């Protein structure tokens, strides 16, 4: 049997985890002529294995108990197997795409560098890759909430033509059976070989371990450490649950918070995208600080037609569900740009401004979405609060991802 521990790509030796979050290819300030690169070396992208089991058994401060399906109990071996699968590029049809190519650890387990995903052979995705931090708590999966459990969800990307591109479950399972480094692993964990069920269970269990909290907010609100956050954060939280009423959808309980009501809402953003009329001219950033104003139709000849997106309606075919999308968690929100289901907003400030203006009016606009009348100072306080939601263990989880083996054709 192959040992999972033998596949660590590289480990950092010190016990202190350095700051790892953020794209290794930082382009902050690229819009200006003063931009300078701050690129990290790939050779130093090494990590440190962490105790993922304990993050399920005892999630960090601020998170409730992790829901675990009765038929898929957790174990160290199962997490390790799921982790190995998660980073294995061979799981796609042409062996170029793992789950981690869209859910990049240092990019908030999402993709900071793309508004909407790019899949097998460069095929276009319509939506932004959602973060996997705290995905264990999601009662609905995908932006349109079409899936219920992580165990089932994993087959969506594996089989989607524009994601990992496998034509059938059988193709995936046969491939894994031929890979020597999986010899005996499923049998050891499940007492049976890889099949649709065990593959889903393994991947789900790893994702169920990506729990991150004990943020400054948690230390203050749930840990009663008054010094953990600034007054601005406290004012922001007061606005969050008061004047701005964000809490109506981004729920907070007495002893824990996942910051989502697990429901889908029409904020008007989807409507505005579907009915968008582009201007005749647009500015294109062609180099640091260098813009060129171009005719908007300049690239029509090299563009596929942008697919429409009507949200939950596509699942229910109920007109009342047009442009409804799932409420995302707010934990680690400062690490998971860009925002909204299509990655249209690059910054949290854009998001808050959107809601401050009452979203975009349309027939199915959620009654909770209305102009908020927030002042600029109040917006800054809400941003301070949102930025206080970064878990204390994000770098530990990223380091664990770095230490995972990347499956490539050997």
């Amino acid at each position, binding site marked *: 049997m192959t040992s999972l521990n033998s596949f660590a790509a590289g480990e950092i030796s010190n016990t202190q985890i350095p700051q790892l979050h953020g*794209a*290794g*290819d930082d*382009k902050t300030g*690229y819009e200006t002529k*003063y*931009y*300078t*690169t*701050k*690129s*990290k*070396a*790939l*050779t*130093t*992208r090494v990590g440190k294995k962490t105790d993922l089991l304990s993050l399920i058994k005892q999630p960090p401060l601020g998170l409730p108990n992790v829901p675990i399906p009765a038929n898929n109990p957790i174990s160290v071996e199962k997490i390790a197997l799921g982790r190995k699968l998660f980073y294995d*590029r061979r799981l796609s049809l*042409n*062996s*170029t795409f793992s789950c981690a*190519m869209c859910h*990049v650890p*240092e*990019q908030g387990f999402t993709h*900071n*560098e*793309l*508004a*909407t995903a*790019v899949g097998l*052979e*460069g095929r*276009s995705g319509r939506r932004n890759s959602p973060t996997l931090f705290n995905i264990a708590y999601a009662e609905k999966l995908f932006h349109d909430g079409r899936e219920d459990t992580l165990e089932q969800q994993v087959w969506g990307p594996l089989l989607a033509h524009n994601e990992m591109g496998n034509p059938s479950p059988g193709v995936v399972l046969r491939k894994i059976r031929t890979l020597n480094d999986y010899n005996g692993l499923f049998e050891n964990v499940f007492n049976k070989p890889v099949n649709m069920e065990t593959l889903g269970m393994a991947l789900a269990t790893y994702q169920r371990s990506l729990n991150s909290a004990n943020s400054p907010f948690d230390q203050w609100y749930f840990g009663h450490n008054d010094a953990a956050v600034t007054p601005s954060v406290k004012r922001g939280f007061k606005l969050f649950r008061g004047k701005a009423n964000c809490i109506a959808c981004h729920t907070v309980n007495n002893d824990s918070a996942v910051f989502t009501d697990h429901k889908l809402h029409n904020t008007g953003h989807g409507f505005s995208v579907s009915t968008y009329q582009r201007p005749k001219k647009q500015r*294109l*950033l*062609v*180099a*640091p600080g*260098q813009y*060129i*104003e*171009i005719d908007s139709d*300049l*690239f*029509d*000849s*090299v*563009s*596929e037609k*942008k697919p429409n997106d009507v949200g939950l309606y596509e699942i229910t075919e109920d007109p009342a569900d047009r442009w409804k999308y799932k409420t995302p968690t707010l934990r680690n929100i400062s690490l998971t740009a*860009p925002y909204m289901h299509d*990655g249209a907003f*690059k910054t949290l400030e854009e998001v808050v401004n959107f809601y401050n203006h009452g979203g975009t009016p349309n027939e199915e606009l959620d009654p909770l979405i209305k102009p908020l009348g927030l002042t600029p100072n109040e917006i800054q306080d809400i941003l301070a609060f949102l930025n206080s939601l970064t878990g204390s263990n994000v770098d530990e989880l990223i380091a664990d991802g770095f230490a995972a083996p*990347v499956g*490539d*054709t*050997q």
Partner: protein
Amino acid sequence: MISKETFTQFGKTLKGVMLGSAVALSIGITALPQQAQADETCMSPYMAKIVGQEDYIYVWTLGAVGVGDEQDKLVTVAANPKDKNYGKVINSISVGGRNEAHHSGFTDDRKYLWAGGLDTNKIFIFDVHTNPSKPTLHKTIENFVADSGGVVGPHTTYAMPGTMMISGLSNNKDHGGRTALVEYTNAGDFVATHWMPTDENLNGAKKSGQFADGYGYDVRVLPRRNMMVTSSFTGWNNYMMDFGKLVGDAEAMKRMGNTVVIWDLHTKQPKKVLDVPGAPLEIRCAWGADKNYCFTTTALTSRIWLIYEDDKGEWQAKDVAAIGDASKIPLPVDISISSDDNTLWVNTFMDGKTRSFDISNPHAPKQVFEQQIGKQVNMVSSSWDGKRLYYTSSLLANWDKKGENQDQYLRAFDWDGKKLTSTFDIDFVKAGLGFPHQMRFGSNALYAKAPTSKSADAIIASLSK
């Protein structure tokens, strides 16, 4: 006849030619060049060049959904007017999959053509010497990513003495632009990975300006100056993405290369990172023995840049000319330098035009000719004498024009210094082949059989006289 120009770059004399032959014989090669061979002007200096007529064009062609067998293939076209099949496809070898077929290059002995797939990271090695009219798939390198420590997107396959230098475009961690050069032996065994300099690890290089992005694209050498030079494009996320989607994604548009790196050719250590903003792509170095410069063009900012050694021995980058109307983003793609270093052909993808620049003063190129080649155009290959030019159309599978805006072709022209005269034209979609990308030339005379009655020693002895 082997041209003198061919070898001036090395400073080689006739002795150098003989040494090359002796090496070839010593490793068991029975063929011996009997005639000087012509080839395009953009090849590695570590191989014999040609001044005569090419016999074949090998076209590394992308498979396309809905076209023929939908997979990548090496297409051979007869290119000698004396051939009864002149201007026709005479061979096609399918390799399986759509690998994002892109560039290709011969080994220094010109026996094998290495052709990379930017998506699947496979490198297909074709035997082009056993029967130059009918290449065969000799070997496929499938473990490029694992060998190299995570490099994705094998782009330029460039002949070095006994090895192939392969420039990567991306990596297997974030599919972004940080990448490396990867070296293999001619036999296909991994040798080393040479990472592009980043801010965190410049690896001894000097960051001369604001940028050290760690990106890669093309690689060229000037052996006389112990210099290797690389350019920078973008990572897998962007080069595989639909082009319209890319230009509409402001964040993705920030992930474009802005650097040219000067390397120590001998040690493979980066020495200096130069700022060349706007995605510098192809690099072409001058052939003249006293010309210490190369050209590159920036795809997004539509400029010609000169990479030159100044009178203090420092390598510099200088913006020397505009290409078309930058506000229309003509998108300069392939370039080709003439063997006399007086002309630079520049293709612009979006408007489908080829442009000729007089570069007799490399610091002040002047456009002297312009012609539409097709609805889109990408690669250009020139014969050594500059009298024949070949054009292909495809840039990247998802960057090419769509529907009726697209044409996919190999178009051949004669060039008399003033005008292009069409000689043949192949519609690659109508022929069920796919989207044609890079062209490399082949010749029967390259692999002419040595007289069987003579031993290798006798051949060397005869050459020494």
